[in-house]
């Protein structure tokens, strides 16, 4: 199924997944969407069940889809001169952020690398794509321990006195890629030199990730076990890593933590999408974008307004900027806190985007206890400060990984989960904990989204945080804290406190009253929020 100017504008979500369905609608709205095609969820079920025809269907689907992409983009997959690179992404009927796999820069063979050099004249871009491809392919498709390649990166960062991969110049990246290939060869593995083989293996890996541990856990926790599988969307790559006027980011049409009618934008320059949503780098806010690329910043606001109106709900879009041109890669209904959901529903109704019945429908799905706002009583001095990612406050015993959080919760203790970067592999820990704290990452990272939806206060990007996993201690703003000690986090202010603190609870009286007024006369009134 194709996505683009001549694609189907309203395909079935169940068949093509939410991501592709939304992309199709974006394309129909004439928004700048890179061409794409989708392999349906039914194929996922068939492949994972080992059905006889499934492999053949997969191949044919990929071949047809590639032919379309090549025409639409004017490039050729695996070409020596004008290469097409693609992203291979998951997308179930219901969004499961970060739970399934993605492989980017697929088709970046050595021949295609020469093609990138020829076409763009930018060696740094070419080698950065190759690096990203090798890293992603090794981890996702070859299922290799990321450490295998990462230790090369660590070595090169030191050798070049660079703070991160974005600081490495093209020549260093070229040699890093060579080191990656040697590491792979030493482990008797290699990324295939044939572009189609790369694509086939990537698609299979994405389909296969449907049955990964964390995906199964997420479906169980979110009551999604009835879904048949994920779709796979293959889309032409846009190069957010091309130059200083390029980047990637995430934008919400309204604040997903508070529901305030103000967009929230996170952007990373000279980066590709995964850098933001993986939570491994800390992004910059809209003000930075407005300064560097005011036209793009304005365009993003316009796009946000447009999609929100079209979809009738707050949207979370993924975008990439290539040399000053904006592309929208994805949109979905934004994961929001219950309180934000309440506020948003009321605002949208007041603005006439949705009617009262729809607003009440959304509101009634919220649980009363989740609408309670929490804050700390009394005053205390923060020992550290990070970026608020999901509102509310939490006080609990420190857990340094998911199993510790789960164990502590099972024993009846409230647990605060503390991680260096909040990977979605920690979903069980998120669920068990009462609050989450990370050293790096942004408030638009997958992990923050999940925390928000689970209504757990979350603070990210808390820099003065040094974790020692062997000793099971953390250095927090100069103080050493052991696993099991009490810690308190404030998801509104981003502050972190030592010790246990008392929590005050408050129901959103004003909003609940507003909701009540929407009900037809005589209808059941929403019970006053009990303050436990």
């Amino acid at each position, binding site marked *: 199924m194709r996505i683009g100017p001549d694609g189907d504008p309203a395909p079935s979500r169940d068949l093509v997944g939410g991501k592709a369905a939304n992309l199709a609608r974006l394309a129909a709205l004439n928004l700048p969407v890179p061409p794409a095609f989708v392999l349906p969820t039914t194929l996922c079920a068939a492949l994972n069940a080992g059905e006889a025809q499934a492999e053949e269907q997969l191949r044919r689907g990929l071949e047809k889809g590639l032919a379309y992409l090549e025409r639409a983009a004017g490039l050729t997959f695996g070409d*020596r*001169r004008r290469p097409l690179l693609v992203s291979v992404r998951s997308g179930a009927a219901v969004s499961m952020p970060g739970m399934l796999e993605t492989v980017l820069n697929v088709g970046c063979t050595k021949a295609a690398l*020469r093609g990138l*050099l*020829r*076409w*763009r*004249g*930018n*060696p*740094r871009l070419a080698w950065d794509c190759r690096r990203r491809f090798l890293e992603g392919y090794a981890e996702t498709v070859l299922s290799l321990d990321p450490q295998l390649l990462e230790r090369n990166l660590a070595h090169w960062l030191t050798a*070049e*006195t660079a703070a991160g991969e974005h*600081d490495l*110049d*093209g*020549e260093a990246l*070229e040699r890093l890629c060579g080191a990656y290939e040697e590491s792979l060869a030493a482990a008797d593995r290699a990324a295939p030199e044939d572009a189609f083989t790369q694509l086939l293996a990537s698609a299979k890996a994405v389909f296969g990730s449907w049955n990964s541990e964390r995906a199964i856990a997420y479906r169980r926790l979110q009551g999604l076990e009835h879904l048949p599988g994920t779709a796979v969307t293959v889309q032409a790559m846009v190069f957010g890593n091309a*130059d*200083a006027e390029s980047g990637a980011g995430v934008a919400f049409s309204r604040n997903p933590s508070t529901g305030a009618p103000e967009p929230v934008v996170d952007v990373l320059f000279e980066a590709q999408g995964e850098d933001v949503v993986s939570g491994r780098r800390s992004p910059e806010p809209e003000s930075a974008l407005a*300064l*560097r690329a005011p036209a793009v910043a304005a365009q993003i606001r316009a796009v946000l307004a447009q999609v929100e109106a079209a979809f009738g709900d707050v949207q979370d879009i993924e975008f990439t900027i290539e040399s000053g041109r904006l592309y929208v890669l994805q949109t979905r209904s934004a994961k929001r806190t219950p309180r934000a959901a309440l506020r948003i529903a009321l605002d949208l109704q007041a603005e006439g985007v949705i009617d009262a019945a729809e607003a009440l429908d959304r509101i009634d799905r919220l649980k009363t206890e989740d609408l309670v706002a929490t804050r700390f009583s009394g005053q205390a001095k923060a020992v550290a400060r990070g970026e608020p990612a999901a509102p509310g406050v939490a006080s609990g015993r420190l857990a340094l990984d998911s199993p510790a959080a789960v164990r502590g919760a099972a024993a009846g203790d409230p647990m605060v989960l503390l991680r260096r970067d909040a990977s979605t592999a920690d979903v069980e820990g998120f669920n068990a904990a009462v609050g989450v704290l990370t050293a790096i990452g942004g408030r638009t990272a997958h992990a923050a989204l999940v925390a928000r939806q689970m209504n757990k206060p979350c603070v990210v990007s808390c820099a003065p945080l040094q974790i020692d996993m062997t000793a099971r201690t953390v250095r927090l703003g100069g103080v050493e804290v052991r696993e099991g000690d009490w810690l308190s986090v404030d998801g509104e202010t981003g502050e972190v406190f030592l010790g246990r603190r008392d929590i005050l609870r408050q129901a959103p009286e004003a909003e609940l009253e507003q909701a009540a007024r929407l009900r037809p006369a005589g209808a059941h009134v929403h019970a006053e929020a009990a303050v436990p």
Partner: protein
Amino acid sequence: MPVKDAVLEYLGERALSAPQSVSAGLAANDRAKVRMAALQLAGGGGDPASRNLDQEAAAARLDPEALRRLLRQARAMDGQVLLAPGLGDLLKALGEDLEVMLQSVEALDGAEDPGLTARWSELKAGLIPTGPDQIAAATVSRITALPKAGGDSIHRLVMDLHKRLNHAAAAQASETIAGAKAIGLRPEDRAPLLAFMRGLERTRPLKFDHPGLDTTAARSGERLLIQNDIGTTDAHVVVTAVEPGSVTITYTDVHRARARFLIRLLGMDGLVWSGLEERQAPGLAGGDSFYLVTGRLVSDDIAQRDDVLERLGAGLVFLIDWNKARKALAGLSDKPGAERVLLWAARHGAGHRAWLQLGGVDLIAQAVRQVAPGRLGFGARLDQVLGHEGTVEFLQACLQLAADVLRQGGSERLVRDRIGAELLRRIERAEAAVFLGVIRQAGLAREIGAAILARIEALRRAGADDDAGWAARAKRIEAKADRLAIEGRAAARAAGLVDLLPIIDGAEQAVDELEQAAFIASILPSDVGEAVLAGLSRLCRLAMSAAEALVTAADASIDCPEGRQVDADDALAALTAVVDCEQAADRLEREVFAAGLTADRPAGALIAALETARGLERSTDWIARAGDAIRRNLMTDLGG
């Protein structure tokens, strides 16, 4: 049984049956060889304590103790006389060995050979000691030498007798097993002989038109002896003795390098080699020294034994014409290179015979002439164009091509064409490597340009300069680009690609100009005015575009010789873009200049801005020069 008794026993019996004659004669031959080696060793220089023939002595059934004592205590007095304990006995025994060999030949022939008898009479005197355990030093070399033209020596007589023994033995009633003449074999001898012949037959085709490689196998006492005469021109032979628990390979050669080659080819898996130790060419008058090399496997493992035999059989064909091939190859590369090529060719089942047969050096010279003149200057040596390593690899490929084509019955012309194509490919690879280096340089130039642009944009936004270390990074990039230029030039010169040097130079200068501009931009104050800053911003983009176009042109150039029309088109379009950038940068620099002069700003700020503009503009000049050189090279490729 003590050795001497065995000899006497044989000598005493006139009516020897054929197998016994062969056996006796061969055993005597073994002993004679070791005794001559001992003489040579004792008479040579070096550290007496390191002299060792234990392995050889054991193989020939001689008493190692006595021999060791002789070797270690041998002294040359005044350089004239050699004195050693047991020397008298050794010379006597050597004489007896010759008698046995002579008798054996006579017994097998059925008649005396007057020629051989006469020679022995002449040479006998040379074995008489001049005093108790003494002999003239010069006599030693006369005994052991293998004079080339006309001369005779005990050693030569021994070798000739050995050949006659083989010949006579072969003429006897014998059976043929797997192509080898087999005399008096026991049932358990078949397996090892078959293993040897398997190897031999596998590589025999690589001998092509050269005669040789005949094998004779005979049972001699407790041992199976397998002998192969390798080629026919060189009087060198390899004898392998197989007995329960061990295999001993005895190989004599006048060329140390060839003996070393054989050892390397056969490898050390289980084989212990001796005989190649430092044997100084004796400071004695005349005579070539020879090398008696022994490889011994001690093992009860039948599979291992057969493996060694098979490998030996398979390796012999590569000894034929080895020295001839080495001399020829050394003329194209050098001696070590030649030996590497020969070893590679043997290991890869190609060998050197096909190449020699198809013309050897001439074959390559003709192929080179075909490929030249555009590529290789008249009189240029191969290693000037391909480098030492490249030449070795090329020669290896030539030997492989020759063997492949000759095996398939192809013609000399076909090999010549293929060799020409191979040479062309390698020259192009060297060119490609230079262009890839230029791509790296241009990429780094682009990055410095991008960094300057970021700085200018930050100044325009009047935002804080959030990247403190960027100028230092630009400096590091420049240092890196310089290293790339040095490496690139060395590689280009090594490959004789002097036409490409201006491209490397142009790219290097462009980087230098940009780094200078970066430095000035880093101290550029922001109050230089929007018009000037806007102009600088556009200049940065032009410099970056120029660098990008250079990358494209270089990449397309790599493909051009073999490539399609689109490659030439891409290259030419990119080169046009380079020129366009240079011209636009020229105009823009003047605009910035004009804007700067009309702006009412502090002089210092303006000077810095104009210097930045100049550096950016100059980088496009240098890139244009590099582009020019690429165009010239391209035209040569396309036209010539």
